[in-house]
């Protein structure tokens, strides 16, 4: 099929921020996650755990606690002392409301989602009413000395339990009075050390579950003030705790990176008496597990090693299938790298700065697997720091490499890049049209003459780039029916005729750029779009969904192509569908129109359309057969079933010639480069891949010891 010269880049020094807190939506369909840099992400479980929304962080906005309230509203609170509501359709943080008690350590919503309780630095617990458009302070509960580190509502909303250092207390919500105060370090010999109650839960039975820095998970009868059970799960601190809605299962996270599952089990089979038993230990993380969540079917944990781990509970899964597989997410489900193909530049996006690199080059050629000697080393051209506390939403470099743009929550910046000899100069483009920021996605046209800016409410702004360094707002494209969600993916066509835009409601609108008119909508498919691209010669839109489905939509014909229909009717191979990281980038080979290049975190794939299309009457398993049969297949062989292998390139290369012919298929999967953050085609046989080996960034994380925050 062909040889590629692969520029294998490992100098993208991305260090994903650690997971600080998790909040599972009460209905269990979405998971909100906050990172230590203040970024908030929403994962959609229904869309194959896709990282659906990302709200970049802010230097001054730490998020200590997240909670869902009043339906689908997401609130966050942190050491800044503010309670912030997140606008999930506009992907921005609304203005915060001051909690009035200093830094906020914890925040929980009551069972009905109408009230928020916050635990503050000054020892107060405050109740806020969730009202349309914001929140309203309601009242203060009994204030005692000592930071309130964790809170939990009783399911009936009558009591709140608040954990502090060395003790926790139970507060009657109606009277606002503390009705019980229990010292947790009472039974310890090492009582001289402070015992920090890091997490707490109040069960409907009146049992208080506390997790403390001595590594204990304790069960208290708060009314009697007695300790019912104590489980020392770890020698180091237990930092987080989450209880299943049914109150029969608890997950705790510790500072050693281990998580433990506790279950309420009958003492004897069939008996009525039940006890909490530590059933399963897990060691998914290398660092502190600061956040855990318990969805109805899964244990979820997030660590300072930036990993989000979703482990389905086997007993809740009907059959052993893909749903029961463990999911680990370390890298974002979106692009942080953009590439100037012609200039061979790479732009790396970090949370508060950008790096521009020029790729090296070689004059040699070689055989498969060979490393070619470099005649020019890669070059770090420039580091562009974003001003202000806000983190970068998106960035892009133009294909010619002379324009560079990025956006934060409040600012959009465009730069002119000039490479003269060895030096690089950046010049800010003055008088960029004032638009309502932020931009969620920036995309330059193939000829680098226009810039597309994804914006709120489904709109896309089109800028005309002017020489030597100017910019003019040409038009704003809007979906005719209106849309509340922001656009997060853009794809212009190479001929400058079309633009596809995906908004948060997963609708794909196609605009005609010649007349700035809405062209059509791609038929709705109820899953998140993870990548789109328009084919340069056929103007077919290739769409990758987070459930791993692939579609091809002919823009001129406003309908799915016959290839796409064929693929859909035959179904994709199970091994393809069961990958757990979404396709994040699609590109094409201009020299070989039937090739589609795709990649996710673990593989890059060249999909040869010619091997899939054009053969009719294969039956429902046609594609599958085409995947595994020799093409052209001299003898159509019946396939066993889904268990036929979807062989990747390295496996195929090991096969003898005859067997290889029989096993060749349309999905040329290469798993050589992992974890893969970006892949693009520079020219007809030159690829660039950006890898970020896990070990490279793990070494940059703080040592995996108990984090000394305070009081420990």
């Amino acid at each position, binding site marked *: 099929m062909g*040889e*590629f010269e*692969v520029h294998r*880049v490992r100098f993208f020094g991305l260090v994903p921020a650690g997971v600080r807190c998790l909040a599972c939506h009460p209905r269990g369909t979405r998971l909100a996650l906050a990172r230590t840099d203040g970024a908030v992400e929403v994962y959609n479980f229904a869309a194959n755990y896709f990282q659906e929304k990302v709200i970049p962080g802010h230097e001054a906005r730490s998020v200590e606690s997240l909670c869902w309230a009043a339906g689908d509203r997401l609130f966050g609170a942190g050491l800044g002392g503010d309670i912030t509501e997140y606008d999930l359709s506009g992907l921005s943080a609304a203005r915060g409301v001051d909690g009035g008690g200093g830094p906020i350590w914890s925040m929980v919503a009551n069972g009905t989602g109408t009230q928020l309780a916050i635990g503050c630095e000054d020892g107060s617990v405050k109740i806020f009413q969730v009202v349309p458009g914001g929140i309203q302070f309601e009242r203060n509960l009994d204030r005692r000395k000592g930071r309130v580190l964790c809170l939990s509502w009783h399911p009936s909303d009558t009591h709140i339990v608040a954990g502090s250092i060395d003790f926790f207390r139970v507060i009657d919500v109606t009277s606002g009075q503390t009705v019980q105060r229990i010292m947790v370090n009472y039974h310890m010999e090492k009582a001289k050390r402070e015992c920090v109650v890091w997490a707490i839960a109040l069960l409907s039975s009146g049992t208080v579950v506390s997790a403390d820095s001595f590594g204990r998970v304790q069960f208290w009868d708060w009314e009697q003030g007695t300790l019912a059970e104590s489980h020392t799960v770890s020698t180091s601190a237990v930092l987080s705790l989450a209880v299943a809605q049914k109150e029969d299962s608890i997950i705790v996270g510790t500072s050693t990176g281990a998580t433990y599952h506790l279950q309420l089990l009958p003492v004897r089979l069939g008996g009525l008496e039940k006890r909490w038993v530590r059933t399963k230990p897990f060691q998914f993380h290398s660092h502190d597990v600061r956040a855990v969540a318990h969805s109805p079917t899964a244990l979820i944990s997030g660590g300072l090693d930036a990993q989000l781990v979703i482990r389905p509970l086997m007993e809740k899964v009907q059959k052993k299938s893909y749903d029961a597989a463990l999911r680990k997410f370390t890298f974002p489900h979106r692009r942080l790298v953009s590439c100037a193909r012609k200039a061979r530049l790479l732009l790396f996006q970090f949370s508060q700065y950008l790096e521009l690199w020029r790729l090296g080059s070689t004059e040699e050629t070689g055989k*498969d697997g060979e490393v070619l000697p470099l005649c020019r080393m890669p070059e770090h051209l420039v580091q562009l720091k974003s001003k202000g506390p806000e983190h970068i939403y998106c960035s892009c470099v133009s294909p010619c490499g002379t324009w560079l743009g990025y956006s934060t929550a409040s600012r959009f910046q465009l730069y002119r890049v000039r490479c003269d000899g060895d030096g690089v100069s950046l010049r800010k483009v003055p008088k960029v049209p004032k638009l309502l920021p932020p931009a969620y996605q920036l995309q330059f046209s193939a000829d680098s003459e226009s810039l597309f800016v994804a914006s709120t409410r489904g709109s896309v702004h089109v800028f005309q780039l002017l020489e030597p360094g100017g910019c003019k707002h040409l038009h704003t494209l809007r979906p005719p029916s209106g849309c509340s969600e922001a656009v997060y993916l853009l794809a212009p066509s190479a001929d400058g005729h079309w633009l596809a835009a995906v908004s948060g409601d997963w609708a794909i609108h196609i605009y005609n750029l010649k007349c700035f008119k809405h062209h059509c909508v791609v038929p709705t498919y109820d899953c998140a779009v993870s990548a789109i691209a328009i084919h340069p010669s056929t103007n077919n839109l290739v769409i990758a969904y987070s459930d791993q489905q692939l579609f091809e939509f002919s823009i001129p014909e406003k309908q799915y192509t016959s290839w796409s229909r064929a693929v859909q009717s035959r179904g994709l191979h199970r091994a393809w569908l069961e990958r757990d990281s979404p396709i994040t980038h699609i590109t094409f080979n201009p020299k070989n129109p039937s090739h589609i290049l795709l990649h996710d975190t673990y593989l890059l794939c060249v999909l040869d359309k010619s091997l899939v299309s054009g053969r009719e009457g294969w039956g429902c398993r046609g594609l599958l057969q085409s995947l595994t049969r020799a093409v052209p297949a001299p003898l159509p062989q019946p396939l066993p079933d889904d268990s036929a292998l979807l062989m990747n390139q390295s496996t195929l290369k090991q096969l003898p010639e005859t067997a290889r012919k029989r096993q060749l298929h349309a999905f040329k999967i290469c798993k050589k480069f992992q974890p893969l953050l970006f892949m693009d085609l520079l020219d007809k046989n030159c690829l660039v891949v950006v890898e970020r080996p896990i070990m490279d960034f793990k070494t940059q994380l703080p040592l995996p010891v108990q984090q000394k925050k305070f009081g420990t």
Partner: protein
Amino acid sequence: MAALCESFTLRGPGPGGGSGPGPGPGLCLEPGPGSDLVLLTERGRAATLFKISDQKPLGCWSVKHGQILTCPVVCNFETHEYIAVHDDKVLRIWKNEDMNLDKAFKATLSADVYRIHSLPQGGALVLFRGGAVRTLDVLLEAPQQEIENLISAEAIRWSGAFMEGQQPVLIFTTEKDRNFFVYVQKPKLGNLHKYKLEQQGSAKPLCFTAHITNQTVTLLCLYSNNSVYQVLIPLQQDTEEEEEKEEEILSKSLLLNLSVSGAVLKGTSLVVLDKDHIAVLGSLPEPGKKPKECLTIWNTKFQTLQTSKELPLGTSGQLWCYEEKFFLIHGKVLTVIMYKCETSSLAAAVGKLKDSQTLDVSSFVNWNTLEDEELVVSFQSQESVALKAEARMSLRSNRSTVAGQSGTLSVGQLLLRLKDASNYVVETELKKLMAKAPTPDLQATIGCVVTALTDRCKRNPKFYPQNLLQEIVETRDLSYSLCPDLMAVALEQKDLHLLQMCLERFPDIPEEITYACLKAFLSVSEDHLKSVDVNLDSAICYVDVELNDMEVKTEILENGFSEEMDQDMCDTKIPKESRSVGESCPVGLQKAALLNAVLHSAYTETFLLPHLKNLPAQQAILFLRYLYYLYVKCSEKVNTTLPGIRSPTINQIMDWMCLLLDAQFTVMVMLPEAKDLLSNLHKFVRAQVRFYSELNKIEGSLRELQRLNHLRESQTYSIEVLEII
């Protein structure tokens, strides 16, 4: 190590408890007709049979008023009759069921009896005051026979009887004018030796005790200068006694000084516990106070006081010891003090004590006691473990205040029962024990049980509960040191399956036993093995049974093992038969499995090597053939492992091969039939060495490639060629 354990009262201050001052001690204790039984004689009137563990009397017999028992009542272990002498001359013999002593058998003798000694297999011996000895049988044939007087004016101070081989030996000491004499008499042969004891200044012996080992009587004497001396008396051969007429003087050696941190223990009685330990009852003078009496255990090897117990109420100065229990009069009650005494040798600590050494342990006791060697040994070895187990159990039950012992037999009782119960009873009792939930001490208990069983097997060769032993070994994690006699018994009984199991399971088998097993396995015939049930798992996967047919074998294995070997063979023109050596199993399946068990056992080369030298040449060759076969089999596979469970590893095979060659090399070189084997082995090893050196080179190259690859991985940027097919 020795330790005194708990004590209890066997008998309170009864009517005969404290007899008045008399010419001799007021009480006498003799072993009863069974274990756990003692016979207490109170000078004067009555004899009582006690069950020790129950602390209660089982029977009591007394003489009529006016009559006096003049020597301790003993029990004839063969007939279970009791023998007493009253009024010096009147012999009484009765049985358990006889209530009235007056109606018992009566015989009046012609001379005064000093003591009667009862021996388990030697019957009863009667020692007269005049030094003459008669067996009871002889005496009863003619009670009025004339008894000669052998000692003129000497008074007997102590006497003891032992079995030496099949012959009873009686030793007694006499005193005359501060001179002490020792007489050694073999009643069945009618010879008598008289020795004079070397004088020890002004000190005189207070107490004697003796035991016999290897034809030598060891007499221990407690002297009034608070020292214990040891006197060795060789048992003379019959031929020499004609010439020896003159009086021999026995020299003695100091064994122990009874000094306790400056103070000196004034001993009154002495008991030997084992070859390193003695117990002394005596008093320690305290300045300004009444001397306090105490019971002490001394280690004669290290000359140390091991333990002591104060007896504040005073004693009668007498001490008896049976079945790992001390008996003494404390105040006015007869007190039983249990003790533990373990041989303080390094071998014991390592658990490799040979059984012959443990048998040496014997206990010969008070001057008025007579005991059979073997009985004491068996008592001690069993009772000590039983006591240990029981003491632990009682502690545990005290703590938990749960009487969990009711219903089942206690371990001590069980052990006693194992000694004589029928096979069926033994089996059911042990099944019960094994069915118990595992407790921490169950392991030790099982060890005791096995020891008890093997002791019984040794005593009675017909008793051999094969299935039971196999089951225990199979299901319990025993070790050799926990039941040191088991393998010896199994060897004796030729229980190959049990030996195989022991070899596979015990981690601490002494090399001597390993060798004995190896020899036994090699010498047993294949035909016999076919009928024996052994575990074949370790060999069945690679020993090709069909190939044992010689005809087929030579046909099939035309091709040599490797090219190199072929060449070598062609060069030296080795006849075809010899080629088959490496290719078909030289031993049968059963034997292979047994030998594998030997290969699996742990050993130390230095200790094994001397034994291996003794292996007969033919067996050594057979074993080497088998090892060679295994080696070839191993080398056939890439991973050099043999299939199957517990099959020998290549390292084990090589180690044994080297050991065997080391031990037998000179023999092998001389033997013509070994020549081909050795030459084949040599060639094969040489080929293997070459092969592996080549492999090492390849490994080195691959490693270098891997290193280069790794180097490339760690680069941050590279341009590579990727071919998509």
